[in-house]
């Protein structure tokens, strides 16, 4: 039933005698599925608000974009592309885990999860190396708002990935106790979806943080912030 249909119900009308009460539509759907949807919604709002402030701040005179001129650090963004590749592989490994789960292949499942986790951890390490690269070039946190946003946004993205690793650890640990097969499947699938989401989020961050001033001006104008 659509939301309009649900909200149009007339609950005061008495149930006909002998009617069997039914469970709701999602009563058997694992709870982790819906909670993940809400969680991703919350994280999206969180980063969206950062993006709005970022675009707004990018239009001030003192904002020096990290790409555009040859001497700027991300005019050549090869380091970030390598990190992106690692995160893509992590996401692929998590998807392999989902397929292994569906085929009921225990060893392949654990192996894929391990690879997904290790690659995610590697991505975080590589991001830290990018920070060191930036700091080495004199791009400190407080040096310019563009630097500040780079550190803050990549840091928060890494923190979300760390949270995912913690959750994955708990899911693997609980697999021994979780008797309900459906819940077990849902938990692994949720981890995979979370990994894909963080990959998508990283691609957006990558795009946003490495544009030229002209592109920022264009985005700002399109958002009415110019």
């Amino acid at each position, binding site marked *: 039933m659509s939301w309009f249909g*649900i*909200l*149009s*119900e*007339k*609950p*005061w*009308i*008495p*149930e*006909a*005698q*002998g*009617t069997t*009460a*039914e*469970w*709701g539509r*999602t*009563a*058997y*759907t*694992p*709870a982790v599925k*819906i*909670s993940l949807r*809400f*969680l991703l*919604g*919350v994280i999206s*709002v*969180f980063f969206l*608000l*950062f993006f709005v*402030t970022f675009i*707004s*701040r990018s239009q*001030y*005179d*003192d*904002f020096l974009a990290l790409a555009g001129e040859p001497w700027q650090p991300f005019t050549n963004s090869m380091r970030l592309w390598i990190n992106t590749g690692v995160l893509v592989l992590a996401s692929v490994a998590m998807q392999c885990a989902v397929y292994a789960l569906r085929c009921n292949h225990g060893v392949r499942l654990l192996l894929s999860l391990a690879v997904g986790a290790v690659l995610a951890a590697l991505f975080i390490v590589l991001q830290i190396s990018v920070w060191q690269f930036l700091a080495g070039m004199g791009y400190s*946190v*407080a040096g310019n*708002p563009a630097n*500040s946003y780079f550190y*803050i946004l990549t840091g*928060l993205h890494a923190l979300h990935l760390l949270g995912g690793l913690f959750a994955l650890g708990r899911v693997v640990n609980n697999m021994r106790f*979780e*008797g*309900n*097969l*459906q819940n077990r499947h849902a938990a692994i699938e949720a981890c995979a979806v979370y990994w894909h989401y963080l990959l998508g989020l990283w691609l957006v961050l990558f795009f946003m943080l490495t544009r030229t001033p002209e592109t920022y001006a264009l985005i700002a104008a399109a958002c009415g912030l110019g």
Partner: protein
Amino acid sequence: MTHIAIADQTAHLHHPKTFIGKYIWSQDHKVIAIQYSVTAIFVGLIALLLSVLMRLQLGFPGEFNFISPDAYLQFVTMHGMIMVIYLLTALLLGGFGNYLIPLMVGTRDMVFPYLNMLSYWFYLVSVIVLVSSFFVVGGPTGAGWTLYPPQAILAGTPGAGSGIVLMLLSLAIFIVAFTMGGLNYVTTIFQARTRGMTLMRMPLTIWGILTATILGLLAFPALLVSAIMMLFDALLGTSFFMPAIVSLGEPLNHEGGSPILFQHLFWFFGHPEVYIVALPAFGMVSDVLSVHARKNIFGYRMMVWAIVVIGGLSFIVWAHHMYVSGMNPYFGFFFATTTLIIAVPTAIKVYNWVLTLWRGNIHLTVPMLFAIGFIFTFTHGGLSGLFLGNVVVDLPLSDTFFVVAHFHMVMGVSPIMVLFAALYHWFPLVSGKQLHTGLGKLHFWGTFLGTYAIYLPMHYLGFLGVPRRYYALGDTSFIPESAHVLNEDITIAAILVALFQLVFVVNVIWTLRSGPRSVRNPWGVASLEWHTPDVPPAHGNWGDELPTVHRWAYDYSVPGAKQDFIPQHVAEEDVEYEAGGRRVGEGE
């Protein structure tokens, strides 16, 4: 494979075996609710004490040497933040949300009990971090509850060193706690309802909590974003919100930041926050009014729609808090229009509450007195909001006591009236004992009349132009002597209201220690929470079998029925009717 409905899954229930497992590291939603409530009330009492100190200074300036200008600003700030976030949000959602959701929708616990437990402990840590700011060098922040930069982190503002950092950290931890709890609430409501409990059969309390939780999940990130950015500005010298500035004769290292950006972020959270507090209160007061008027809620569907519409609109009114920030007039016009539109669903709710009382069999119990008191205070606070929603009226009244009076009536006194209505109403369920009625009525009248004695004259002070946040008014030509006398009167009323809250504390302690046991379901309530096998409900709530729901939660005084209420889990064929009696509409 046999699938078990989410509501009936018992694997995650973790039956506690030790005292610590049962009462400290508990995963039972009821214990967590009580932990939330006790912590929130404790910290709320601190905020109450701060307001009394603040009023002493305003009523009798210069009489109390220990209240310095810095201390006064710190009292104002901490009072506001504690009341809005750590008391009202935590008690309404963490306390009542936790207790009532599983019981009202008919499930055994929250869907993620471990996360629920973590939510409380994170909340407790946030409270400890906040309170610890009273004990650091420089004391807590005195920047006002809105924490506007640049002054919040500039030398010269009280608590600009450690105080503001602890406040921002505490808020960040609180938001993490809220998110963990909030995910639990919405998932439990959407997926773990018992058989027959359709969304439109849920009590309005649950609708209010559900919508407020979704608002919180979407609005608190704005506060988190601003808290993180301001922490960076304060600790690492970034310039998100800090413009180029000269402080105490020295140019600072900041440049180019936008303080107005912070205001947008803050109020994008701040206005929905009003409804995060108000919507659960709307829901609970609807249920209390219906039960104690022995009449179904008037316009149930309209009440649900109004809750949802108010929730949606609350995201597009935030800039009405910023009319004096120098915004584009067209921008102000847009926000004034949306602000006035939100009055429509709100007014619908007020009419429906009054129409629920109309020709009802009103029992003037203590919860009912508080609920009726709420209708008065909320209507008054809401009407003054219509004044302030208009740019031309807001400009002269902004930053005067009129604003203080308005928001205290609408989101201070009103939700607190509902909180007390709810505490008196559900106390027998939680404790198995009923609070003393005489003390309860004394508490009500003291609070109701006392708050009017505080806030009605405060509107008048605002019209005179008396500014808020000032430590002392001094000799100002446009403020007459009578305003000072009025300030003294308000302070005396505030002290009396604070003392009347002690009546409630005494009532709770006395009842828990030596009060008589309550009868089962003393108010004759139809919704599920009062129909558990044990009262107070045991771990797992429902014994061997979950209840099955056959009707909405408002079947009171059904024509022809022998009992004056029909519980939600009673099927139509099991309802006893008088001889020859029948439902209205039956056979027509």
